[in-house]
Every structure is written in C-alpha cells, then in structure tokens.
C-alpha cells in the first residue's frame, strides 16, 4: 500500500519500546510497520520496501549489527536506510562499529521523541536525496545508454552507408575504367588504318582493363578453314602467320558461334601448337558480324584478380572489335582495290608513253629518214634531168609529208624531252607555242641541267602542255608564266595565266573535264598533288608539287 508517506519498519523485540517508537512515529505522520525478530524482519523485507528501518541491535534470534550488514549487502535493499537503535550498547565504539557496518545512523536510548523525529526526518531527507541522486543517476545512465545505443545505431548506419558507397564507388571506378578503355579503343580504331592495328589496340585496352599473361586476336577464314593471328600480347610469342584449324578448334568455334563467351579451366592453349603450358583459365570471346564468326579474342591467365572486369569488358571489346574488323576488312578491300587500280593506271600510262616513244622514234627516224632519201633522189633527179611539173609536185608533197611526220612525232613524244631534259624541252615547246598560237610564255626555272626520272619529266611536260592548251583555249589571254622549281627531294611546276579564270571545283565536279582530271591523276600517280586556284579575278594558277624519292 502506497500512501505517499514515508514507510518505516520498526524492529524491536521489546513490545513496549517498539510500540512507543511506532506510535511516536505514526503521530508524526509516518507509515509504520512493526516486527519483533530478525526472521520476521527478513520475511517482511522480502515483500516490502520501506524507506527506513529502525533496527534494535539486540534481538532474540539475531544480532542487529549482523542484520544491518546483511541488508546493506543485499542489492535489492541498498536504498533502504537503516538506523540502529540500542539502549545497552551505547559506547562511542559501539556506535562507530554500527556506522562502519553500513548503518546510516546509530540512535542511543533513551532518546527524546522530538530528537528521534528530528533524526528520522534528517535520515529520510538524506535517504530521499540519495534516492533522488540514485534516480537521477539511473536516469542519466538510461539516457547515456539510450544515447550510446543511438550512437551505435547511427555508427552502424554510417558504416553501412560507407560500405555501400565504397561498393558504388568501386562499381563506378570499374565502369569508368571500362568506358575509358572502350573510348580509347574507339579512338584507336578511328586512327588505325589496318585490321592489325585495330586488333592490337583492342588487346591493349583489354589488358588495361584486366591484366592477363597472354592475349591474342585470331581471325578465322571460314572458306579455307584457317586461322591467322592478327595481334598478340604477352606469352607465347606467336610466329606462325596462318594455319589450318584442327578438330579441337573446330569444336571451340562451334561453341563460340552460340555463346557470348567461353571459359575453359586448366587447359593448354588450343590455338598455339606445341605449347604444353597449362593455363588456369582460358577466356574466349567470339568476333561476329552479321551472324558470321570472324574469329576470337583469346585471353589466357594464371592469376585472377578480384573485381575482375574480363568477362563484361571482354564481351564489349569483342563487340566493338567485331564491328571495326568487319568495317576494316571492307576498308582493306577498298584500299587494295584502289591501289591496284592506281597501279594499273600507272602501268597503262607507262605503256602508253612507251608506245608513243616507240612510234615517235619510228616515225621520225625511220619514216622520216626514208622520206629524206626520197627527197634527195627527187632533188638529184631535178638537178640531172631538169625540173618537171610532176617532179616539183612530188617534191612539194614529200616536203609536206616530212613536216607532217615531224609534227606527229613531236606530238606523240618529244625526243627533246628524253635527250635534253625537262627544262630545255619545255623551253623549246614554249617557243613552238609562240610560233603556232602566239602565246607569250615567261618561263622561269632554277636548274636547267637537272634531269628527273623519265616518268616525272613526261608527267610534268604533259601537264604543262595541257595547261597551256587550256590557257590558249579558255583564258582569253595569251600571256602565261611558267615556273619550274627543281631541288633534290622535290620539284614543282606552276602555270599561271592572267586570264578569265574559272571555278576549278565546278569544272571538276560538273564537267569532269578530261584534261584536268588527267593532270590530277598524273600528279597523284607520282605521289604528288595538283592544285588549281582560280576565280578571284587573278587568272588561273595551277601548281603541281611532286616528291622526288
């Protein structure tokens, strides 16, 4: 029963003194329970929890001092104040002993009622204060515990978050690495010109992403059933260019045609013959274009790192390489086709020039020589038998024939060019143009004795011829400047007129003027370039620049 008043247990075997105490206390507003022996006291305390026990030191079944010691040792009763009361043991030593045992007060009898009440009140104040202190402590401890728990929870959450973030960061780092590698691969593909270069770039990217001891790109030629190593990194050194595929490889390629990748543990390298080395894992990524298997990337490793990027990265790189390879194969074919065509053009021009040179010599030296003979015969006939109309006519025809043959021979191929070189042949050609068409050519050159390779001389001569014909026909001007610059490693020919000019691009694009494209082709076949500048009111300037290597 809790009345809000302080509860006091009075333990005394002497009925009178017990009642006197109890009543005094009750009168002063305390709840009081009574008990007359140690056993009863223990019994009581098992069920109740008084604020204060006034304990008689001398009990029939127990010593109050021992009880006091016993209760103070009891955790459950630690908040209960104990006042020892005695009428017999009242020396200062007794009192000190009691207090040392843990008693909160030692009251000696007789004690006046007011003193008893005052002391009880004082004790209870202390007890309350201690209780409050204990409560406060307890609350504080609760709060601390709660706070600690909160902190622990927060800490835990933080740890989890850090962990999550770390995982995310790692994932991001790997993604960045992979994207970086793919980007580098894209760049490499853009800059590469051959399938081999592209393959090498892919292996470098893959190695960057996930280091491996051995990486190769193999191309499969499904028509001839041969494989060819396009690129390799690390061991083993691949020396063979191409070899037929065996049964084992055929099976592997059949698997690869169906899967995005293949992983083979503890195996020798199936693509490399004669190697006994057992690899911990072999990863194979198929290269496919339009469902056709082009080949494979093979990665052989002995050590596998954590956070391995090989599987995903390998598939992506294989995808990129597949596209690049199929495109670059087309590109290779076009390049080869173009260089073949170029070579054919070059040979055709060569054959044409050779044929012209032959015809020119034949016309000039053989037919011309014979005509000269006929002319001499006719002249000596005239000298010996006198001129007749028929002989004179024949002589006139022979003369005409001779000049025709000569012109034809020169037009086919000026012997001058072969015998005297470009500068002199051009100079002479400009003299002819002056005579025939009234074209005034200012010819500037730096090295009149220099001889260039025959195909260069004829190309430049023909370009000059064609360009000046254009000047005469289209420019509306009869003045031109020709500059010929020859040095050890380059030569340059420039034909500049001050005429109408034209838009070179529209000429080239729309009309495909045979002369212009022919000139450009001649220049390009010799590894040089031809540039036409026109349309700015400054006439037309044609520049051919050729490397002499």
């Amino acid at each position, binding site marked *: 029963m809790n009345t809000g008043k302080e509860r006091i247990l009075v333990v005394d075997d002497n009925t009178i003194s017990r009642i006197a105490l109890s009543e005094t206390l009750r009168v002063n507003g305390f709840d009081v329970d009574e008990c007359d022996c140690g056993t009863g006291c223990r019994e009581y305390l098992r069920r109740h929890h008084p604020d204060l026990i006034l304990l008689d030191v001398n009990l029939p079944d127990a010593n109050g001092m021992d009880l006091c010691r016993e209760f103070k040792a009891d955790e459950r009763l630690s908040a209960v104040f104990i006042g020892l009361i005695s009428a017999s043991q009242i020396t200062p030593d007794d009192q000190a002993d009691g207090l040392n045992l843990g008693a909160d007060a030692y009251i000696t009898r007789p004690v006046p009622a007011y003193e008893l009440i005052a002391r009880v009140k004082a004790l209870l104040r202390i007890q309350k204060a201690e209780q409050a202190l204990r409560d406060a402590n307890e609350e504080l401890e609760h709060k601390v515990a709660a706070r600690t728990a909160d902190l622990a929870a927060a800490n835990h959450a933080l740890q989890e978050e850090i962990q999550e973030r770390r995982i995310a960061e790692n994932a991001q780092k790997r993604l960045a690495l992979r994207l970086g590698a793919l980007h580098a691969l894209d760049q490499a593909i853009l800059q590469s010109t051959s399938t081999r270069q592209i393959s090498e770039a892919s292996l470098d990217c893959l190695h960057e992403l996930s280091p491996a001891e051995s990486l190769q790109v193999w191309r499969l030629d499904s028509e001839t059933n041969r494989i060819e190593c396009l690129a390799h990194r690390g061991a083993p050194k691949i020396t063979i260019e191409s070899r037929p595929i065996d049964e084992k490889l055929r099976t592997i390629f059949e698997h690869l045609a169906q899967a995005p990748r293949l992983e083979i543990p503890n195996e020798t390298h199936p693509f490399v013959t004669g190697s006994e080395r057992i690899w911990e894992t072999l990863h194979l990524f198929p290269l496919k274009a339009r469902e056709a298997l082009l080949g494979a990337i093979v990665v052989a490793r002995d050590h596998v790192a954590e956070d391995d990027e090989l599987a995903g990265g390998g598939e992506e790189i294989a995808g990129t390489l597949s596209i690049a390879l199929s495109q670059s194969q087309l590109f290779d074919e076009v390049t080869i086709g173009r260089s073949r065509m170029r070579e054919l053009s070059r040979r055709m021009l060569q054959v044409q020039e050779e044929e012209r040179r032959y015809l020119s*010599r034949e016309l*000039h*030296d053989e037919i*011309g*020589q014979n005509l*000269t*003979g006929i*002319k*001499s015969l006719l*002249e*000596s006939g005239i000298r010996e038998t006198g001129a007749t109309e028929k002989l004179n006519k024949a002589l006139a025809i022979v003369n005409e024939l*001779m000049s025709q043959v000569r012109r034809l021979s020169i037009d086919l191929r000026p*012997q*001058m060019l072969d*015998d*005297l070189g470009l*500068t*002199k*042949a*051009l*100079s*002479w050609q*400009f*003299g002819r143009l*002056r*005579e025939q068409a009234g074209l005034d050519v*200012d*010819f*500037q*050159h*730096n*090295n*009149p004795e220099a001889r260039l390779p025959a195909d260069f001389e004829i190309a430049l001569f023909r370009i000059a011829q064609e360009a000046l014909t254009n000047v005469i026909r289209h420019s509306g001007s009869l003045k031109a400047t020709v*500059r*010929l*610059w020859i040095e050890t490693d*380059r030569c*340059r020919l*420039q034909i500049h007129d001050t005429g109408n000019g034209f838009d070179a691009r529209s000429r080239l694009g729309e009309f495909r003027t045979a002369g212009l494209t022919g000139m450009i082709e001649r220049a390009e076949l010799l590894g040089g370039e031809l*540039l036409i*500048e026109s349309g*700015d009111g*400054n006439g037309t*300037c044609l*520049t051919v*620049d050729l490397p002499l290597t």
Partner: protein
Amino acid sequence: MTSPKKIRVALADDHHIVREGLRLVLEREPDMELAGEAADGLAAVELVEREQPDVLVVDLMLPRLHGLEVIKQVCRAGRKTKALVLSMHSDEPFVMEALRNGASGYLLKDCDGDEFLRALRAVAAGRRHLAAPLAERALDGYIEHPGRTNLDVYDTLTNRERTVLQLAAEGFSSAKIAAKLFISPRTAETHRANLMRKLKLNSQTELVRFSIRKGLITP
C-alpha cells in the same frame, strides 16, 4: 707538185644507206679520205680514239651512246677531231646542245652533196658551219627566250600559301588565319606546313626572318 694533205673523215650513223651514200660522195673527192665507219655511239668513240680522223660526221640518234654524248667525248679539249652533226632534227635545242658540247657544224639530213662537202671542208679548216635553214632562221627564238634561271622559290608558292605566309608572318595563329580566310583550321595548318616545307623553314622564327628578308613585313 705535192698533193695537199687529205681530209680524213669518219662516219657514225646507224643507217647503212646513209653511210653508203656519204661514202659514195666522199670517194669522188680527191682531197677526202674515209677513215672508218661506225654504226653506234660506242663504236664511234672507239673509232675516233683509234683513227684520230680530222672530222667525225655524226648522227644524234645513235644506239648505245647518244650522239650528243659522243660529241662531248670526242671534242674534249686538246683533241684534233672536229664533229659535224648530220641530223634529222632541225629543232634549235638540239642544235644548241650539239654546239655547246663542242660540235663544229650542224647539217640536216636533207642537205645535198655539195653542202655536205662545203661543210666538211669548212669544219676541217677550223671554221663553223650551220645548215642554211638553221643559219637563216637564226636561233633567235631560242636564244632570245632561253628562260630565266633566277627563279625565286617564293614565287612557286600557291596564292593561298602566299596569303597564309603573309598572315603567319604578321603573327596570326593558324586558327585566326583559318577564320580570316573562311577555311578550316586544319586546312590552314596544312597550308602552313606545306609552305614551310617548300621554303625549307623549320620554325616560326625562320618564317619571320624569311618574311622580313622578302619585305613581306617590316621589322
């Protein structure tokens, strides 16, 4: 009366008929003597070394060694043999080249026997002889317009390259040049690289120095 020393003549022509005809003409002349015949350039040089004739009648279009080269070797300083060209070519450059290489005379193959003999005697006597049409036409066309050999490499640049050079010398970057000329920066860079290669300039400093020398910019 002592007969004057005969003129010893060697013939070099790959046409048998031509040599035949010339031999017939020579044999009729008492002051002429045939020193030998050759059908190609190398044989001609050997023949001259061996026989030391007064005159070598030589065609330009010879197999194995070009007639121009034969003349050059035969007419080296200190040799007594004179060269008389007998050629199908009436084009001035061949005439000029033959004369420059040391030939004393130049005849065309359609000349008559008299002119041939006249020329032989003139050349043997140390004079020069040019076929009538060549002498008449003179060589003015060729001589007056031999071209100029003082070409400046700057003049062989394209118009665009000259513009780019000017702007580069004035200190504009390739990007600025491109913007000014409405071309791509890459094209501007190409023009710049090309003109530097053509002018054999290796740096911006050299470019500026060249431009100052050329008067494109004032220092």
